[in-house]
């Protein structure tokens, strides 16, 4: 298993085609799913010991709906503790993603518990 890989969310920011304005937030399950597929995060998590997620500057919010869809399979695969050990979050600006991240993890695991 290789040592570490990096996913920079900068390359996945939504952009308005008309105005060219780049979004300052990450929201929605659709967006989360798209980033999950484009980044191949599930596969990277299997092949690397550490995955670093870089949160770009000028990000003001990453909502739980986005994180929930982005990390749904890796959280189910590894569990909360191992997921947090494997995934590192680095913010290039001032945004702290801990609260929405923990909310997303709780939702994923809560749904799983209800189905079991």
């Amino acid at each position: 298993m290789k040592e570490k890989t990096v996913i920079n969310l900068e390359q996945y920011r939504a952009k308005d085609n008309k105005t060219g304005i780049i979004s300052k937030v990450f929201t929605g399950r659709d967006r989360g799913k798209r980033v999950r597929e484009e980044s191949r995060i599930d596969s990277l998590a299997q092949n690397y010991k550490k995955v670093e997620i870089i949160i770009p500057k000028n990000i003001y919010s990453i909502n739980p709906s986005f994180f929930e869809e982005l990390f749904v399979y890796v959280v189910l695969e590894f569990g909360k503790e191992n997921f947090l050990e494997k995934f590192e979050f680095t913010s290039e600006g001032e945004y702290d993603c801990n609260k929405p991240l923990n909310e997303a993890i709780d939702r994923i695991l809560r749904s799983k518990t209800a189905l079991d």
Partner: protein
Amino acid sequence: MDPYIFIHDSVAEISKIMPKEVTNVVIEQNIWDYFCSGANVLIAIANIGLILYIFFRERKSGNDDKEKNRKLGLLKTLIIDYNMDRFYKFYKNVIESTQPLLSEKIDNTLKTDVNEAILALSTEFRQEFVDLFLAIDHNLYNKIIDETDSLTDCITKSLFDEGINLSYKPKFHDEIEAKINETRTNTLKILFSYKGE
């Protein structure tokens, strides 16, 4: 003449003169009888099959209806009767949290504070109200959480969209208040339309 001998001789003579077609007609009638008998058997088997099919289908339908009614009953007694105040409180609190946006000076700090307040309210709402539906029906839970996320995501996007001036009251109404009211109504519709299936 002995009448019995007469009858016997008559029958013997009659059989001699009976045309072959009559004999053939007799044979064809027997085949037709067999066909009718066979058809009757098949129809009887089909009837039995149909009766059994209707019986088992009705029994399954009855069991399904019982399960639906059970779920609806549990939804009402375990969740709705005791927790609807939390539902209305959430939307009231979200409206109150967004009111500071109507002030003239909106900066990123204020927007961040409002956004974090709304996300915190959403987390609390999920823990105290929405999660309860996981005990009844997972699809119902998904619909309600999707609707709530739709609200918070919409508010977040509006907050940090530089092209939207939320301190302008009509814009605030369109982007924030209308969305809150719409989500509340949609969630009530989801609850109302739940049929236990």
